[in-house]
């Protein structure tokens, strides 16, 4: 009856990704993240040679050395700038590789369906349950001289599966949407449907998966380097911590040596998490309706809200 006519005449609605509203969270994330990236890009141009050995070892922060010196008198700030660049390079490479791998195994498989989907999904799940870092550690043990690229490659190969699984789930649900089916009936080419109808809807999810991949890559590389298994001759936050640990910075109380790299890593990770929060709110409309920003949009006084809370959950 009426319901049917409504369904027939209603325009075929599509969900198009929108830009996240610039909330305080997103702004903080972008500013923090941007500052760290800028430091990694420009810092190395402004500081002295990070490997240059000085006479004053383990000196605290001062005018000459803003962040003090290491045991062998190297400038910590200079090291930090180069380390930031190194860690960001790892993050970027792994981010891109994860995007490619997870999109391939997650989206293409789910979209194609059939045995290909079964196969890809089985492969994804197996990679997922085999813990990544032990694989990386074992491989590192066999290869004494590694480049940063190799380390990134191994991290990406062991880390893409989680994203692929998430993407597969979304693709499956998108594939069954009315407007996609409508396009199929209309005889559009399959790759075109994938590119025009499905991919745009997956962009927020892809973005959040890449952000996660970057965080985990930087964390993973830091762990590996801290264990002394990272790329040889490179500067990253992890190698700085490795040298700080070996230089007994902890025992000697040289906090300026081991605090900054970890702190920068944590800040960068937090910045990316904040960005991801905002992306999450696009992906999940139910979350959006509960954000503080939307609640502020209600014309309700706190008194009214409190009253409302009494009668409902």
């Amino acid at each position, binding site marked *: 009856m009426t319901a049917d006519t409504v369904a027939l005449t209603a325009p075929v609605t599509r969900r198009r990704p929108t830009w996240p509203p610039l909330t305080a969270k997103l702004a903080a994330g972008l500013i923090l993240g941007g500052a760290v990236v800028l430091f990694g890009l420009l810092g190395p141009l402004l500081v002295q040679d990070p490997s240059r050995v000085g006479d004053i070892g383990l000196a605290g922060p001062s005018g000459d050395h803003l962040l003090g010196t290491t045991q062998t008198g190297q400038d910590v700030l200079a090291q930090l700038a180069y380390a930031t660049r190194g860690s960001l390079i790892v993050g970027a490479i792994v981010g891109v590789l994860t995007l490619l791998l997870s999109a391939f195994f997650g989206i293409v498989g789910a979209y194609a369906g059939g045995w290909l989907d079964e196969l890809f999904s089985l492969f994804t799940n197996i990679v997922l349950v085999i813990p990544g870092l032990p694989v990386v*550690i074992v491989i590192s043990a066999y290869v004494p001289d590694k480049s940063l690229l190799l380390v990134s490659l191994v991290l990406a190969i062991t880390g893409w599966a989680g994203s692929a699984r998430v993407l597969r789930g979304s693709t499956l649900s998108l594939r069954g949407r009315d407007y996609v089916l409508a396009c199929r009936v209309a005889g559009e080419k399959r790759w075109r449907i994938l590119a025009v109808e499905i991919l745009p809807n997956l962009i927020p999810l892809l973005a959040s998966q890449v952000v996660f991949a970057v965080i985990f890559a930087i964390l993973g590389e830091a762990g590996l380097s801290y264990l002394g298994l990272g790329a040889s001759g490179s500067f990253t936050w992890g190698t700085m911590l490795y040298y700080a640990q070996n230089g007994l910075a902890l025992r000697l109380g040289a906090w300026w040596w081991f605090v900054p790299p970890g702190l920068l890593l944590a800040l960068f990770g937090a910045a990316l998490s904040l960005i991801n929060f905002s992306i999450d709110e696009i992906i999940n409309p139910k979350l959006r309706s509960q954000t503080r920003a939307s609640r502020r949009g209600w014309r309700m006084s706190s008194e009214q809200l409190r009253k409302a809370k009494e009668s409902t959950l």
Partner: protein
Amino acid sequence: MRYLIRKFGFYLVALWAALTVNFCIPRLMPGDPVEIMMSKLGQKGPVTPETRQSIEALLGADSSRPLPRQYGDYLAGLATGDLGVSVTFFPASVIDIIGRTLPWTIGLIGLATVISFLAGVGLGTLAGWRRGSWLDNLIPVTTMFQSVPYFWLALILLFLLGSVWPLFPLNGGYDVYTVTPGWNGEFLGSVLYYGALPALTIIVSSAGGWMLGMRNMMVSTLSEDYMLTAEAKGLRPGRIMRRYAARNAVLPSISGFAISLGFVVAGSIVTEAVFSYPGIGSALLQAVGGNDYALMQGIFLIITLAVLGANLLVDLLYSVIDPRIRARS
């Protein structure tokens, strides 16, 4: 039933994949691990032909043998539980080392992981239930801990609680000087005391992630129709929260365990390194440092199997608490 068969089938395939990866890595990598191990073993004592054979089966030096044969030997060796001997801990066998270190890791990592999961899910439930409360506003702060590397947090905690205010021991699994291992109160107390700081590190850095995930799922669940029904039924809020909201919201957290367990293991290997904890992660690093390839591969295998086993358990648990899954697949 079909669900269970599918699951077991998957884990069999995954097990096979893990064994195969373990077989391939030493053969694909540059260098000659068997020769390195043989020369190191030779320095420690006479090497019997059997030892050489078992190590070759594991690491694959003998290129005259075709790969399928090598693969057969490798599986046969594993079937008898032969993982070779360790160089670092000569003459102990790899199995012995694993048996000695694994309980420490399971005790520390297993317990800490379970605690952090429960704490995170519990706090996330409350935060989602009382949106906008102080606990809910704490969430961004806790996710900051999530991006703090485990080992750096461990370093800071060690620095503060071990060096600046010496409340906790700096390293080890128990007080090796004054207590003797065994089932006595003194030893157990010492183990708890030494395990507190590493466990705290793991809990602090991983509970935030569980909390965030659970909080978001709670918020999604609250707008489901059955929540309104529950409320209209006049049920008490506590019961609605537990049986209707949290019971549904926890499902993705549980199935997400698979994804996160790998990270937990990774983080804990590094954590063990920081605290020189006598667990399997430290043993792995020692093996890597000493080119002890047999021990390394053995530990890799065990870690992988443990993660597979934990995942299987979680899957079984999931099928108990989500009645739909049994019907669906």
